[in-house]
Structure formats: C-alpha cells, structure tokens
C-alpha cells in the first residue's frame, strides 16, 4: 500500500491593505494559458507495438487504451464483418469463460471493452496489473464461438431490419454512399445480404488480418510507474504476433460535377433530411486546420451558429441545424451542413443552407462571431483537457497525425491568432456551393414538386433520383389517375362490404383481440377491447407486466405508462373515441369531410389514400378494397412523429374479416404483431374499462 503525503499549509499571512481595483467593469482576460501537457515516456516492443506512458499520480487510477491505427478497411460483399468481430470481442478468452470474465471485472470495480480496432480499460491502480492482463488476454486470445456468433449476427440483422423505414438511417447511409462512393470504406453499405455472407471463419480472418501490432499504440495514463508498466506490457503483449495488415486500393471520393439535388424517396417520411455536402481534403497537420474548425463553428457549430439561428430561431423550419468538418490523414472527408425539416419547407431549407454557405464564403464573418467562436472553442478545448482520455488522444494524435510536438501546447495561442481573413479563406477552400451535393431524403409526393423549382445563384438546381441503397433510379411518378367519379364514400363502402357488410358490422357490440410481437428477445403482448358504447381498452405488456395502458369509458379515461398514471385530457378522449368505434369506417361515412388524396403504393399494392383528418390518413387496396395501412401524426417533444399501422393476412371471424398481422412503426422502431385471438360479442365485460 502506498503512503500518501499530505501538505496542509495553514498560511499565517494576513493581508491588511487592498490594492485599488476597478470593479465597475469585467476584468481583462489574461493571455491564453500554456497547456501543461505531459510528454509521455515511450518504449516499443519487438512486434511493433508502441507504448506511451503518462504518469499521473493525482488519482490512484489507471486508464489504458489500445488503438490500432489501420487505414480504413473495405469490407466489400461481407460488410458487417467488422461490427461482428467487435461484438464478439471482450467476452472472455480461450482460458477464461465469459461469465467468469464479467464477474471478475465487476468485482474489481473495473471496466474493459474491446473492438476490432482497439481496446480500452480503466481501474484502480492497485488492480492495474490484473486488469491489463485481462484486457491483453481477451484481446489476444479471443474465444470466437459459433453460439455467440449466431447471437450477435441475429442482433445485427434485427438492427438492420428495424432501420428499414427509418428515414434518418436511410438518409445517413445514402449521404455517405454518395459522398464517398459505395466502393470506399466510408461509403460501403452493410445490408442483410452482406451480413448473411459473413461466417465465423470470416470473423476469425478479419481478426487475424487487422488485429495486428504494426500500427498499434498502447497508451497508459495514471497512477503507474514506468518501469512496472514496461515489465507488465512486455510480459502480456509480447505474445502478440508481429504482422502488418493487408493493404488494398479503393476509389477516391470526388465532388459532384455541378451543384445538384440527390433525392431519395421514402414514402413514410414526415420530415425531410437535408444535407448539403462536399468533399474536403483536410488533415490535422494542415496550416489552416484551426481556421477550418472555426469557420465550421461559426457556420454550424451549435446554437450560437448561423445555421441554427437562421433555420431554427428565425424561420422555425427545424429543431436544429448544424454542420461538420472532418480531418483524416488517410482519406478525403465529407463536409456537411444539415437539418431535419418539415416537409413543407424542404425546398426553402435547401436554399437557406446553400445561402448560408455562400454568405460565409463570400463575406467576412463579424468580429463578434469570431471572438465568440474562439472563446467557446478555447473554453471547450481547455475543459476537455481535464479528462485523461483527452490527454491520451492528444499524445496519440501527435504521433499518428504527424503533428509538431507543441501542437497542443500552442493550440490556444493559434486559435487566438486566427483572423477574419483566415476564416474566409478556409470557407472558400473547404465549402463548396458550385460542386455541392444536396442529399434530400423525404416523401416525394409532398416535397418533389417544389424541390424541382429550387433556384440557387440564378440557376436551377437539377434533381437526380436515388433509391434507398444509393443507386440511381427513375423519377418517381405520383400521377396515377383516379377512376372517374370515385369518392371517399365509394372507397369506404367497398371496404365495409368486403369485410362483412354494414349489417354484420353494426351487429358487433364488442370485440376483443390478443396479439403478440417480439422485441429484443422479449414478448410484447397487446390486448385490445372495444365496444360500440365508446369503451376502449388497450394494454401493452412486456413479460407479463403492463407497460402502457389506455382506458376509455364514455367521457372519462386514463393512460398509464411505466407505472405513471395520467388522466386523459378532453382532446385525448376525443381522439380515442374516434378510434374506439369498433369499425371507425362506419363513422367516417356519416361524418363526411373525407377526401381521396390519390393513389399511392403500399407494400407493392396500389391503394387509395384517404385523408380522414389533418393528422390521420388511411390507405385502402384498389384491388381488394381492404384497409392496408393507416398513419397518424403525433407530437412528441415538439416534433411530429408518425405512427404507422399496416394490416395484412385478413381472416374471417364470426363472418367478419379481421387482419391477423399488424406492423406498427413509430420512429425507428417497428413491431410485427401476430394476432392470437379475436372474439366478437364475447369476452368483454364492463370491468375491462374501469
């Protein structure tokens, strides 16, 4: 056990006179502080592993970080192998079973995580030797098993599936693929198909190829002694076999030939994802690296920046609009300025973002903007230095990014020295409005017409079309003519007819339904009961526990979510009443005011789109007349959220056709409900609605 020396100096100085100071104004800030960054001690193992040690005895803890600085890896038709490898690492080793490994780490109060390109761990210094040993063992002797492989593969496939209709996920994927090209490591697409191409052997191969010491750095920071670290690291990491990762070529990303809109049609989108992007070649060691960071901050670096002020605060188009610039020594990178915006303002947002980029390129920023950006930047930079990981990253960056030794020591001074002219030059060099790719992911039927009219710098911006996997496609055609004389009533009457007829439906006093869905390996149960007397009950249970319940009985009702109960507001009651009719279509017919909006594809079928209210739309199959889908727009934290319900597999119960499969999608989540039971005019009692 170490002895701690404590100094407590009780000062006897007494200050009797106070210098006159001017308190009426804010004191001047001092010169930018010099960064007291410690120089790490170093050594290298014979296998090529470079080790840096930063002794810091302030706290009796140690952080260790293994970084393998490989060039980006092209996974090709096995995209997903890197993710799979990462998720199989850190689960024990050939000699320590998974459960024992977890338990020991927990007992030590430590944490260890391992990925396909590195590892990290933290612990109290007294357990450093053991934790380093555990990290090394799990990193160098992983126990890849078919069982774990299958489990993780399922998890990744479920993730991909759940993102099928996720507008943000689609947008990000296409933006990256268009910026870098699908043949580039940062642009390639992981799909169900590529994941299914991956076998356990591929994971082992990937690990063998890339988890190698040639470009590896191990940084150890904290309450350690260099000699001891050297001894332990040498002991635990010498078995790591010397090897160099395979190298390969990939396409070099290039900008668009002219500024263009790349449109991706996602029919369930209620917001458009707009990203204006171009390719930049920026490395950390470049002279104007800080200029580039500052100009990005002024343009879109936060809530004080121009994009946010314009698109959110001034126009109210979006919840937030930002921009990002990235430095990379291996590859040109994407600059992007982006926002999620309401459908109706998609075209205006494109113009505003392009205008802001144009303005910052053509006009100098104001003194105030630059001063504030510097202050915020300097403040954040300085605060981050407290975190030992930041210090580790800096030491590593100097090494791997080929930076001058005093790069971080002079950081603040150099920030301070940046001028308005520097900032404008950086904008001109790194932002483009002449070769920009404006990727818009959204609902074509609502946004394309106006998007086609976008003018920028007196030129029409052409629109090119891409599918969800970033392949070129035809312009979508939404002009399917409605049959002559078709009205909403025709569609609704046909639906009522095909599911059993008006008399039959009106004879339904009550019905009860039980359905199940899977969610992350757990069973989700949905129980729903309705009567013709404005009674409604819906209960969602996970593993038998009620997670969310809505109950309506005439004019009163309540909602329960995760243990909290809340009475329904009159508006909510009204809304549920609309739903709670056993067959709402019977009401739609009498209410009227419903319009046919057109014909749209739903899951490969053509459907009439009926607008029931401003927030509710229902789709009926042109061929069969059955209800295929409905969408409801709800507010969640001030943002519109679309809740979609799709109906499939209609079967007859007591002479009425009911859907036995329902797919509910809310935001990125999707649930497949299989109906287990439907009862008509039985199984419902008054007590269900208490």
């Amino acid at each position, binding site marked *: 056990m170490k002895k701690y020396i404590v100094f407590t100096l009780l000062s006897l100085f007494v200050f009797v006179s106070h210098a006159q100071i001017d308190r009426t104004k804010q004191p001047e800030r001092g010169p930018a502080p010099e960064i007291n960054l410690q120089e790490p001690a170093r050594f290298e193992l014979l296998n090529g592993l470079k080790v840096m040690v930063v002794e810091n005895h302030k706290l009796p803890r140690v952080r260790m970080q293994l970084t393998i600085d490989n060039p980006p890896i092209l996974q090709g038709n096995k995209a997903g192998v890197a993710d799979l490898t990462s998720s199989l690492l850190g689960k024990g080793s050939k000699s320590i079973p998974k459960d024992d490994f977890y338990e020991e780490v927990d007992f030590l109060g430590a944490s260890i995580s391992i990925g396909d390109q590195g590892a990290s761990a933290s612990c109290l210094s007294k357990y450093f030797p053991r934790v380093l040993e555990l990290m090394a063992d799990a990193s160098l002797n992983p126990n890849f098993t078919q069982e774990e492989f299958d489990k993780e593969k399922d998890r990744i496939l479920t993730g991909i599936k759940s993102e099928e209709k996720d507008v943000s996920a689609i947008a990000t994927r296409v933006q990256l693929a268009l910026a870098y090209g699908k043949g580039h490591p940062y642009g390639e697409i992981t799909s169900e198909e590529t994941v299914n191409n991956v076998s356990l052997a591929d994971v082992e191969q990937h690990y063998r190829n890339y988890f190698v010491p040639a470009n590896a750095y191990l940084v150890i920071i904290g309450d350690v002694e260099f000699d001891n670290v050297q001894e332990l690291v040498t002991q635990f990491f010498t078995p790591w076999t010397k090897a160099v990762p395979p190298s390969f070529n990939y396409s070099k990303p290039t900008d668009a030939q002219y500024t263009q809109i790349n449109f991706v049609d996602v029919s369930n989108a209620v917001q458009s994802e707009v990203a204006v992007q171009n390719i930049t070649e920026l490395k950390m060691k470049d002279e104007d690296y800080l200029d580039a960071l500052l100009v990005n901050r002024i343009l879109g670096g936060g809530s004080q920046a121009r994009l946010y002020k314009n698109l959110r605060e001034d126009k109210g188009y979006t919840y937030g609009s930002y921009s990002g610039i990235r430095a990379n020594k291996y590859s040109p990178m994407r600059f992007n300025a982006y926002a999620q915006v309401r459908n109706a303002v998609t075209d205006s947002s494109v113009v505003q973002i392009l205008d802001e980029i144009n303005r910052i390129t053509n006009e100098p920023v104001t003194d105030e903007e630059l001063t504030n950006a510097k202050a915020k930047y300097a403040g954040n930079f300085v605060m981050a230095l407290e975190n030992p990981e930041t210090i580790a990253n800096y030491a590593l960056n100097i090494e791997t990014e080929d930076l001058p030794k005093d790069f971080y020591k002079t950081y603040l001074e150099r920030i301070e020295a940046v001028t308005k002219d520097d900032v404008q030059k950086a904008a001109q060099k790194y932002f483009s409005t002449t070769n920009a790719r404006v990727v818009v992911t959204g609902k074509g039927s609502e946004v394309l017409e106006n998007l086609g009219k976008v003018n920028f710098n007196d030129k029409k911006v052409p629109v090119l079309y891409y599918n969800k996997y970033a392949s070129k496609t035809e312009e979508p055609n939404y002009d399917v003519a409605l049959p002559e004389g078709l009205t909403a009533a025709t569609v609704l009457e046909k639906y009522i007819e095909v599911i059993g007829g008006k008399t039959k439906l009106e004879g339904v006093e009550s019905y009860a339904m039980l359905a199940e869905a899977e969610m992350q390996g757990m069973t989700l149960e949905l129980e729903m009961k309705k009567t013709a007397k404005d009674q409604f009950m819906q209960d969602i249970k996970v593993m038998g526990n009620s997670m969310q319940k809505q109950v309506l009985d005439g004019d009163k009702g309540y909602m*329960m979510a995760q243990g*909290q109960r809340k009475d329904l507001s009159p508006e909510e009651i009204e809304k549920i009443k609309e739903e709670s009719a056993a067959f709402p279509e019977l009401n739609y017919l009498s209410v009227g005011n419903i319009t046919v909006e057109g014909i749209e594809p739903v899951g490969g079928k053509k459907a009439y789109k009926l607008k029931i209210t401003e927030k509710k739309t229902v789709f009926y199959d042109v061929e069969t007349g059955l209800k295929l889908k409905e969408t409801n727009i709800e507010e969640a934290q001030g943002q519109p959220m679309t809740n979609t319900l799709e109906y499939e597999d209609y079967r007859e119960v007591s002479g009425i056709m009911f859907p036995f499969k329902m797919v509910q999608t809310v935001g990125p989540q999707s649930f497949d409900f299989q109906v287990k039971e439907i009862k008509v005019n039985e199984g419902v009692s008054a007590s269900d609605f208490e």
Partner: protein
Amino acid sequence: MKRYLPIALFVFLMGNFAIAQKVVFEEYDLDNGLHVILHQDNGAPVVTTAVMYHVGSKDENPEKTGFAHFFEHLLFEGTKNIKRGEWDQIVSSNGGSGNANTFLDRTYYYETFPSNSLEVGLWLESERLMHPIIGQVGVDTQKEVVQEERRLRVDNSPYGAFFEVLLKNLYTKHPYRWGVIGSLDHLASATLDDFKEFNKTFYVPNNAVLVVAGDFETEKTKKMISDYFGPIPKGAEIQRNEVKEEPITNTIMDTYHDPNIQIPAILLAYRTPGQAERDAYVINMISTYLSDGESSKLYKKLVDEKKIALQIFSVPIDAEDYSSYVVGGLPVGENSIQDIKDEIDAEILKIQTDLISEKDYQKLQNKFENNFVNANSSIAGIANSLAENYMLRDNTNLINTEIDIYRSITREEIREVAKKYLKVNQRVELEYLPEQKDAN
C-alpha cells in the same frame, strides 16, 4: 439557465464521497473572516472559482421557509456592477460554465473557466457577495421561477414529494422538518425587507468559504483574492441554535397520495448520525451493500431473482446535524408493498445478525475506492469537496483521508451499526400511494 436543487438523491450521493488522494491545498482566513482554500493543479488550464455559504433551509425562520433556495436564484439577478441578465453571458463569453445549488445546510455557487479567466470568476463571486441587487423586479421574476421549479420537481413529478414527507415525519423540532424548496405561500408573502435582512445576516464573508482550484499562480491569486474580497465588510456573528430531536421509539406510520403515480412505493426511513460522524460512513457502506448495482443484495433478490420489485433503492441523505437513510422499493405486478417490506426487513436482519461475507466486503471496498477516485476526477468536483469538507465536516483534509475511514470500517462494525440504527421501532414507514379514485 436553470438552477437545480440537488433533490435528486443520487446527485448528493456523489457529493458525500470525498476521496483520498494527494490533493494538496492551502487554507487561510481574510481579515473579514472569509475562509479561503486554494488547490493548485496546473495539469490542465482550467480553474474553478466557488463560494459555499453556510446557509441552508435549516437556517430559515419557520414562518419564512424557502428563503435559502430563493437566494440561490436571486443572486444571479445582477450586482451593482453587473447588469440584470448579464451574468450568464459573461460566463459563457469567457468560455466557462457555472451553476448553483442549495441543500439543508448550505448554498453553493461555482464557475469553471479556462484559467486565463480566473480574475473574471473572482470578480463575479466578489460582486455577488459585496453588493447584489435585491430589488422588486428580480424578486418578482424569481418568485415565478421558483414556483415553476416546485411544480416541475415536486408537485408534478412522480414520487417528487417523498423527501418532503419523510423529513416532516423524521423531524418534529429540528428545522430539517421542512424541505429545501419550502413554502410558496411564505415566499409569496415575503417583503423586500425580509430578503434584504436574510442577505445581511447570512451572505457575509465570515459565513463563507471561497475555493479556487486548478491552474493558477499562488501569490498572484492571493493578491487578487485580497483585492476583490478584502474590502467586503465582516458581518455580525451568526447565532445558531442547536436543536436536539428526541429519539424515535415507536414506528411512525404515514401514507401519502401522489396524483402523479400509478405504482405504489414503500419507503423506510431512519434517522442516522450527522455526516461528520463515523457511523454515517458505515451507513453509506450498508446502503451500497444493499442496493448499489445489479449484484447488490436487494436488487439481486427482489428485482432479479424473485421479481417482486420493479425497482429497489436505498439512499443515505447526508446532512450536518442528522442524516437520513431511506430504503424502499416499488412492487411489480400483483406483489404488494408489504412483500417488499418483508424482504427488506429480512435482508437488514441478516446484516444485523451475521457478518457480511469476506468477498462482499472486499467488493464493497473496491466499489467505494473506485467511486471516490472517479468522483473527484475533475477540478470542479474537488472544489466542491473541499468546500463541503471544510464547512460541514470541519476538516478540509478529509479529501485525502476519508478513504481511510472506509478502509478501517470492519465487518463487525457494519453489523453493530445496522443493529444500532436500523431498528424497526426507530423508523418512519411511509406508504407512498397513487391518489385514490372516487367511486364514480
């Protein structure tokens, strides 16, 4: 900017666990009685300026509660030299961030800056102490804000009232008996003179500790401190009455109906020794043993294995005169709060009868050490611990030695302390229930 009371219990769990490292500091008094603690660490160019005032809700007049917390808001309204609304702007344009909080015994204000803005921090805090503007506009504005805060955190917040209800039951004479937010009626009826009087009494240098922690030059900083804080006049000595509670000898039963909840909760609360006492540290260990993490006794048994409880918790609420220790849980499905109570009692009885296992004891030590080390990993965290150790535990150096207390606690001691304080007849049993529906 919103300012939060540390009502969330887990927040002050952290605050209690000062750590035992080589935190070198220096302390002295100015002529006017301001206590100064300097902790120099030039590792990162970050500096925290913080002032803790020895005034909390317990110092309030029982007829005028809520003042201490109200001041935490009011003292951001501006000073003689800082216009209304400028405070936050000054902080952020210097690349800094800051906030404040109030509890039973103290009120704490702090800012963290890049170290070249140290003087700005000292200027801000000295202005706040020297001549804050206590005017009608500020008072009216902050009355609204505090009302909103009470609605948000207590009235509309699920389980938000439990701390207040427990305090009321645990203390009959001691001023801990009203909560930190206090009474909105008292605040509404308070006059400008009441607020000025409170300021004059408690916001004086001889009732405060200034901490400067981080990257600075010592001599220069001492001079600045003297320049900015020296001219502030000393206040009258503060009279504090020591209030002793009679021991609880019969279980106090209470129920409370919260309109914001659906699942009932059972809360068992014990009055335990003040935070500076050794037994308070033992209680902290018992609490961690019972409910910290998925492998803790209560969690493992009630949530994981028997699936009786949706959630289980045990929280020591440290304070100067007495601490409070709360154990409780929320039942799942058909299980009752009685089931939970029985299980908790069985587990506490085990601690009172048998020694905890060697392995659990070692794991506990590891957990504590790890928590301590990480709790004070930032300059801002160290500043807070230094101020609190000086002001509420009367020993600034606890930041270095507190871990030794935990290390020295034995398994036998854990058993004895559990026996002494965690008796059924010495506690409050609060059934915290959903609001009942009317028959119709």
